[in-house]
């Protein structure tokens, strides 16, 4: 049945994309929080934050994009949880389809939904004065990092969706992920932070991802940041995928 994996995933992907098309509020609410945050930081706090030469919205956008993804993946956990509650999950499991395609459909849906939210946020940032001279290659690199980051976080969401006992539990796990960018270089440079906080901020995944994205936008050399960023993303992806698969197998033992 391996030859059907792609086809089955495509059919199930079509199903979840219909869900999104019929409740576009999930895309809007995903984009609203980061946009509100962006407005708040640019027009309220931004004047008091010294980030050097570039405009604050340009400095801020990479971190805001990560916040967007962190809040968007909560819907994957939510949808997966509802599928399991409603019985349709068991219907799929008892059908002659590739079992992993059920999860992959949710993961790819998350990717599509998050990329749409990202485009919305970037458009708002452009209105607020975000500018980048980055070429096609740099934009592709940014997109690539965001895709891997989304996949990594989505597999964490899959673990939450599969093992949650309630709807609230299924989405609560994303709050720490939304909070993580605050203790990084996303909103302010790390060099004003006290020692231990700075040590944490400089060595957590968000900072390397934000710095790499920021340098790509600013047409600066990305140095090792991009490799550190990718290593973090791929590392989280592999670990989360392994745990998600083991949680998935437990649901059918």
């Amino acid at each position, binding site marked *: *049945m391996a030859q059907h994996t792609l086809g089955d995933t495509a*059919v199930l992907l079509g199903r979840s994309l*219909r869900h999104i098309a019929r*409740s576009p509020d999930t895309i809007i609410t995903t984009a609203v929080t980061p946009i509100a945050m962006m407005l708040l930081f640019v027009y309220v706090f931004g004047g008091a934050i010294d980030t050097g030469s570039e405009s604050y919205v340009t400095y801020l956008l990479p971190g805001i994009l990560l916040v967007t993804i962190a809040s968007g993946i909560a819907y994957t956990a939510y949808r997966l949880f509802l599928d399991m509650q409603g019985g349709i999950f*068991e*219907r*799929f499991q*008892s059908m002659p389809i590739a079992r992993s395609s059920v999860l992959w459909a949710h993961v790819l849906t998350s990717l599509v939904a998050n990329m749409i939210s990202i485009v919305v946020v970037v458009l708002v940032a452009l209105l607020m004065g975000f500018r980048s001279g980055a070429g096609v290659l740099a934009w592709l690199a940014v997109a690539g990092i965001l895709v891997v980051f989304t996949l990594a976080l989505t597999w964490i969401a899959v673990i939450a969706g599969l093992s949650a006992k309630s709807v609230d539990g299924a989405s609560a796990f994303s709050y720490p992920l939304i909070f993580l960018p605050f203790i990084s270089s996303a909103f302010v440079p790390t060099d004003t932070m006290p020692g231990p906080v700075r040590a944490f901020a400089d060595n957590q995944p968000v900072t390397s991802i934000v710095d790499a994205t920021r340098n790509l936008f600013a047409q600066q050399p990305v140095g090792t940041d991009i490799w550190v960023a990718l290593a973090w993303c791929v590392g989280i992806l592999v670990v989360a995928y392994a745990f998600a698969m083991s949680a998935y197998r437990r649901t059918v033992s």
Partner: protein
Amino acid sequence: MRTHEGHGPAIHVQGLEKSYKELAVLRGVDLDVPRGGIVALLGSNGAGKTTVVKILATLLRADGGTATVNGFDVAREAPQVRESISLTGQFAAVDEVLTGRENLVLVARLRHLRDPGRIADDLLARFSLTDAGARRAGTYSGGMRRRLDIAMSLIGDPPVVFLDEPTTGLDPQARIEVWQAVKELAAGGTTVLLTTQYLDEAEQLADRIAILHEGRIIVDGTLAELKQLLSPAKVEYVEKQPTLEDVFFAIVGGGAGDSPADRADRAVRAVGSHE
């Protein structure tokens, strides 16, 4: 067209055991279900009916014993078993966001069938859902949702169908609609294993009845055979009153889709038959 026709009985279960932590739910279930017809698995809440169905549907692994469905071992040949069955679980497993038609098309695609649209339209017509086909399943009544659920289970013409408490939570009218659907299903040659806690449901529908109690099948046979287990019928003269069910259907009419004339006719018969 049955591409995955196996041999022997439709379902063969021997010494099936399953425990949840300390709690032994199944303690050696033996059950043979011949091909064709309807078998009711009867038992009180928590007797393990759903556990049996889940094991047969490859959703759960047994701790001990063997089970084959359509000739395929549920543990070793799970993909072939899944080709042979369909499951309608306790909660109507329909996608509420999709329309009725889209639900059917989805299942037809996942079963890799040709012309999913035509299959969906045929089933909508067969289950009197054509008018509701373009509406979201979330707006359906309980009975319509169950009918859609059962229609989804028929796609691909699986030789064995499991119905886990198909009428729990339905009103009497919807219950009759579902019974009608199940009878049609069996008339087409499909083997139906249904679980229920309603004795009248088993009596109405099943060719054979198996009673699951304390983790084992304690009785298994036709209704007539089961009745013979008790002492021979004695003759008593009792004034027969209409049951509340008779009254209910006499007043509101029977299954959906009846003409008012049918209903009036049945009302007269229902009341008249108890004189």
